[in-house]
Structure formats: structure tokens, C-alpha cells
């Protein structure tokens, strides 16, 4: 293995304020309740942020309503488009700052926030900007109407990217938004609020209320909200679906997953192993569509496992701001605890655990890349979403068995297929009950490509033409 000299990205480009308020009606207001957000790589406090109360959420929803009625829903689409183009451009101009801030607050490697998250954020705003004045061509009628005020709650795994997935289509369609970022990763959303000011977006069109579960509950159950969009756990998704029952609120949910990544014997093994590694270790496995169940055809099991272990030994775990880092910090102590608990259950239930030799930093939240072999479909690590760098390995003999095992889950967000045989790819793709099927690739995202799940992975699509439907009154 090569030795690498440290290659840290400078954090001097970000100017984190000691304290942030709530962004309501284009203004910053001090929150009544405050908490801290930490850098998960070293547990250093980054800033104090507000946890919005019910009355503060109410103020934000009222601001969004006024902006909807007086400004945004009546503005010609071509004008809305230009605001979104402005926002996209400012994101590109401030790309490095956003990438460093995202890595500091979330713990993800700078290589990822710089090369994946932030470019996709800008691309998302560019994509939906162009829709704002073309909605009549989207297939939802000649002049589809917006819904009104959208209440949006996003997770901590891709903080700014999930914000873009929510806000860009909502604004393009003519809605106004109140968005709640996750309590452990609020900082890039707060900088996004500054970007809205810089773009001179009319006050109230975008409102950012930081906080935890109670803030989210106040937002989704607020009677002034017409549309609820949530990305997060299936458990919380269920609670939100119950909370909006009986209302006229339109709901889209992007929830958990337990994706199968299926490797056939004729697959190019080296490429497949890269796909397996990318599928489960990208973003520390904090990915709802992660390929967390590896299904390997029995005849190539030994070869795939040996190659996978060799590759895993080369993964560099450590400082998120180091440009050579492959795997960064686990986002929070609570998430680390969940990963540890489920991994211990994996061992207790009889699966074999393996991690490459790997030195973890002393401070912060860290978990070595891990695989379990000898996993059966009954094991909890094969059924439950771990949301960490932990892979369960199972085997199969026939394509029909691979389909059966892949679909044997209440989730249905994504799946991967690796084979050289074209007809088999299409045969598998037809039968996999999942919203995204990656064939001979994995974890690819694009603003033009719809994303979302079957079954208990939620409903509705984000991205692409399909993503507009969630924000139109159709």
C-alpha cells in the first residue's frame, strides 16, 4: 500500500458564525430555544443554532403563505426561473465554501462533498429552473397549478443535496417552502438562506427553520401547510402519513431501504467489486439506497470475497477534510450507537464479521468498514436498515432465486445488477421491485433522473419530469 502524505483542505474558506437564528420572511430571527451542532470528526462545537418552537414555525408558515399569495404564485414562470438560475450560479460560485462546510458539519469526505454533493446541488437548481416556464409541457395538463405552501423535512446524510431536491422543484412549480434541516447538520441550509438573500429572492418564498423532531412535527401538522415532503426513516414516515390522514395535504415520502446488489458469475468482477464498495461505503453507508445486501452467485463467491477484502484494505478512513479520505466520520453518537448495536446483533445471530486493519481517530464518531458473511435472510442485519458502512453478504444459485431474495424485504428503493448478459439485465430489471435499478453501476444520481421507492420505501418521485408531480395540484 502506498503511503500518503496528509492533504488537508483548508477550512479557512468558511466563516462559521458562533450563533444562527431562523430564516423567516427573508429576515433572521433569534430562536427562543437553542442547541449546538458539532463536527462529528472531532466533537468540536461548530455553532449554536435555534430549535424552532411551534409559534416560530407558525410565523414561517404564515410568511410562506403571504409570499405564495402575493408574489410567487402570480409571478410569470420565466421570472421564477431566473431566480432559480441565480441561485444555481451562486452555489457554483460558493462551491468550495459549501463543500468544506458540509464536510465539517456532516463528517463526509471533502472529495465527496466537493465532487458529488455540491455539483449535484447546483445541477438540480439549473434543471428545475428550466421547468418553471415550461410546466404546461410536463404532461400534467396545459396549465398546472402549484399546491401552495410546502412543509419539507430533510435528513442529515446529504444535507444540502436533499435541500436542493426539495426546494428546487417546489419553487419551479410556484410553491413557497418552509424547510427544516436535520438537527445535526443545519449549517449549509443556513448558508443557503444567505444565498437566497444574495439572489434577492422575495422574502417568505424560502423559510428555514432549524430544529429537531418537535419542530418537524409542528411543521408537517401545521394546518397552513398544503404539501408535506419528507426524506428520512420509514418509522418517522409512517408517523407523518398518520399525521396528515384526513387532511387535504399532498404527501410524498422518501424513506428507508435495504437494497440488494446482485453479482452474477459472468460479471466483470473488478468492476463489480468497485460497485459493491461504492454501493455500501459511499458516504459512510449513510445512504437510503445503499447496496447493503450483497447477493453473490455461489460459483464466484470465493473470488468476489477475496477481491472485496483486498479492495477494502485500501480504503482510507479518517479526517473528512483530507482529500485522500475515502470514508469519513459517522454523523452522530446516536447513529454510531445504532450501527454498533446492529453489528453486535449480527455477530450474536451467527454471522461472521470482518473489517480490514484500520486505525480510527480517538475523538469523534468512527466505524470501520465492515462485512458480514454467512448471513441468512432471517438475520436482522439482512432485514433492517443499518445506515452505516456495514455490508451483509448472501449467496444465490439461479436468477430466480436472486430475484426472490432481492425482493424479500418490505423496502423497495433501489437494486443493483452486475452481469455481462444484456437479456438477463432486462429480465432482472423487470422483476426487481425497486424504484431505481442500477445495472453494472451503482449510486448514480442526476437531477433529470427520478428517484424514489416502492412499498415501505415511500411514495412519490424526486428528480426529473416525474419530480414535478409532487409539487403540482394534479
Amino acid at each position, binding site marked *: 500500500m502506498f503511503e500518503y502524505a496528509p492533504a488537508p483542505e483548508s477550512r479557512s474558506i468558511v466563516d462559521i458564525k458562533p450563533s444562527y437564528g431562523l430564516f423567516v420572511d427573508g429576515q433572521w430571527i433569534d430562536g427562543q430555544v437553542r442547541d449546538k451542532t458539532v463536527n462529528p470528526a472531532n466533537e468540536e462545537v461548530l455553532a449554536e443554532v435555534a430549535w424552532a418552537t411551534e409559534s416560530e414555525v407558525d410565523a414561517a408558515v404564515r410568511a410562506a403563505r403571504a409570499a405564495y399569495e402575493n408574489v410567487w404564485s402570480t409571478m410569470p414562470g420565466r421570472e421564477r426561473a431566473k431566480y432559480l438560475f441565480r441561485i444555481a450560479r451562486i452555489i457554483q460560485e460558493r462551491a468550495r465554501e459549501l463543500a468544506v462546510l458540509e464536510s465539517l458539519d456532516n463528517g463526509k469526505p471533502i472529495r465527496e462533498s466537493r465532487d458529488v454533493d455540491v455539483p449535484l446541488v447546483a*445541477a438540480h437548481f439549473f434543471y428545475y429552473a428550466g421547468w418553471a416556464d415550461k410546466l404546461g409541457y410536463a*404532461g400534467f*395538463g396545459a396549465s398546472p397549478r402549484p399546491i401552495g405552501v410546502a412543509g419539507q423535512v430533510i435528513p442529515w446524510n446529504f444535507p444540502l443535496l436533499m435541500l436542493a431536491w426539495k426546494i428546487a422543484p417546489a419553487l419551479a412549480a410556484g410553491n413557497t417552502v418552509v424547510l427544516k434541516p436535520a438537527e445535526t447538520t443545519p449549517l449549509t441550509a443556513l448558508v443557503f438562506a444567505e444565498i437566497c438573500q444574495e439572489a434577492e429572492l422575495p422574502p417568505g418564498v424560502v423559510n428555514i427553520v432549524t430544529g429537531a423532531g418537535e419542530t418537524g412535527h409542528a411543521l408537517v401538522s401545521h394546518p397552513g401547510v398544503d404539501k408535506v415532503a419528507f426524506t428520512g426513516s*420509514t418509522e418517522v*414516515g*409512517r*408517523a407523518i*402519513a*398518520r399525521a396528515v*390522514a*384526513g387532511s*387535504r395535504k399532498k404527501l410524498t*415520502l422518501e*424513506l428507508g431501504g435495504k437494497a440488494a446488489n446482485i453479482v452474477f458469475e459472468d460479471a466483470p468482477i473488478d468492476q463489480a467489486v468497485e460497485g459493491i464498495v461504492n454501493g455500501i461505503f459511499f458516504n459512510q453507508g449513510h445512504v437510503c439506497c445503499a447496496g447493503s445486501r450483497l447477493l453473490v452467485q455461489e460459483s464466484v463467491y470465493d473470488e468476489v470475497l477475496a477481491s472485496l477484502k483486498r479492495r477494502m484494505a485500501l480504503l482510507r478512513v479518517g479526517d473528512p477534510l483530507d482529500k485522500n479520505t475515502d470514508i469519513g466520520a459517522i454523523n452522530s453518537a446516536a447513529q454510531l450507537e445504532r450501527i454498533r448495536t446492529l453489528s453486535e446483533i449480527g455477530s450474536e445471530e451467527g454471522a461472521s464479521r470482518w473489517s480490514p486493519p484500520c486505525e480510527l481517530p480517538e475523538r469523534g464518531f468512527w466505524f470501520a468498514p465492515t462485512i458480514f458473511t454467512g448471513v441468512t435472510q432471517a438475520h436482522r442485519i439482512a432485514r433492517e436498515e443499518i445506515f452505516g458502512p456495514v455490508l451483509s453478504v448472501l449467496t444465490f444459485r439461479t436468477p430466480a432465486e436472486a430475484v426472490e431474495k432481492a425482493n424479500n424485504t*418490505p423496502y423497495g428503493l433501489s437494486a443493483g445488477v452486475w452481469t455481462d448478459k444484456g437479456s438477463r*439485465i432486462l429480465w432482472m*430489471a423487470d422483476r426487481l421491485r*425497486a*424504484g*431505481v*435499478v*442500477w*445495472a*453494472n*453501476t451503482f449510486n*448514480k444520481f*442526476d437531477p*433529470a*433522473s*427520478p*428517484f*424514489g421507492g*416502492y*412499498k*415501505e420505501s*415511500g*411514495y412519490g*418521485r424526486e428528480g*426529473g*419530469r*416525474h419530480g414535478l*408531480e409532487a409539487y403540482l395540484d*394534479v
Partner: protein
Amino acid sequence: MSRLAVRKTYKLFIGGKFPRSESGRSYLVQDANVALASRKDVRDAVVAARAAVKGWSGATAYNRGQILYRAAEMLEGRRDQFVALGEPEAEVDAAIDRWVWYAGWSDKIAQVYGNANPVAGPYFNLSSPEPTGVVGVVAPPESALLGLVSVVAPAIVTGNTVIVLAAEERPLAAVTLAEVLATSDLPGGVVNLLTGKVAETAPWLAAHMDVNALDLAGVRDAALATSLEEAAAENLKRVLRPPAAPVDWSADPGIGRMTAFLETKTVWHPKGT
């Protein structure tokens, strides 16, 4: 001496067969004794609907269209019977035409609702609609045939299978429609039809973990609708809520009742030599 008529027994329609309610109950409605479905009948119907998903969703779109068109032919042949049951002639005609309209959608909806996606990289990327699976439907009470056809046809034409709770006070047209479907080459279990009390059977349907979606088109009790939607959240069923305002079932229905029970699957593959 005048001939004594042979009366019809109005039964349930489950898995392509016409059983009485396992509960042995019936209720008097429209001057007939009609089967009063129970929780067990709901469960049997879900089993039948689930068993039919693989074959029906796997059939070609052309084949589904052919079968649904055949059902319209059978419906036309029973036209007078529906009129005799009290369905207005114009509604019967509209129901037949509505069925034909949806039959034609079978091999077009994927072209209208799916599309290629121009992603920023060397990838083939295609989004296509697929059926959600098993759909529970509460039929509209105010339009026993046209309303029923308008909720059943859009759900099944795309490959879903359904369990339908017929209009409680006007179930005879629904049972007769089941007889039409039974003679239309429609595989058993694609449409399962239960007569009885919606307030009794709908909660079991809404809470059933092997049902993927609910169409509450016919629920007129707001409290019941809310509790059904809450129960549906347990396995994140897709829910089409009751209409906010009275529906004109003869108006152009659009494609919304089809797309409500479709999932979008997006397939990626690299391009290269």
C-alpha cells in the same frame, strides 16, 4: 298457468368464483338477499388478488387491452340487464364507453407517463411505470355502474389487481359486472368484488399488510376515511382520498386514476464499447 321465475342468488366474486359469504350472512337490499361480506371474505379476496398479480402484471399490455375490450363486449350484451336494475340508460352507455376508453390505455400509458432521462454522463436511463400491486377500492355509492367502472378499470388496466367493496345500497349492478368479468377471459383474482357494509369491511382492507394501495373514492364518512388512511400508513399504502367535491362520473376522467396506482422504475446502464 304462468311460469315460475328462477331467481338469482347475489354472491361475492373472489378468485374468479362466486362464493357466498363464509359468514353465511346476507342483507336485504334492492329487493334481494345479497351476500354480507365478512373480515374472512376480505382476507380471502386479498389472497386471491395477490395470487393474480404475477400473471396479470406480467401479461403483455396488448393482452390486457384485448381482455378488457372483451369485457366491454360482454358489458354491451348485458346492457338491458343493467337498465332493468335501475341504472340510467345514459350511464350504462357511458360505463361501456368508459371501459373501452381504459382498455385502449393498456399499451399507451407507459409511453405517456414514462420517459428517457438525459443524464449528465454516459448512461442509458429510462423511467417506466409499473403497477403498484394489490389495490383496495371502495366504489362510489352514488353511481353503481359508471362509478364502479370508473374506479375498477383504471386500476386493473395497468396490471394491478383489486378488491372492490361495492356500493352498499346498490350492489346488484356490481354483482352483475362481476358476472360480465367472469365471462371475459379476465384471469380469476384480478377483480374481486365484495358486497356488504363498507364500515365493517373497509377497516380490514385498510389494515391488511398485503394490500399496497387504497382508493377511497366511495367513502362518504369523513371520520371513517381518516381512520382508513391512518391504518393504511402502517405499511405505507398509496392512498387516493375521497373526492373533496361531488364527482361528475361522466366527465373526462384524465389519467390520474391510473397514475395513482403506478410506481416509476428508473433503470440505469453505462454506455461503452
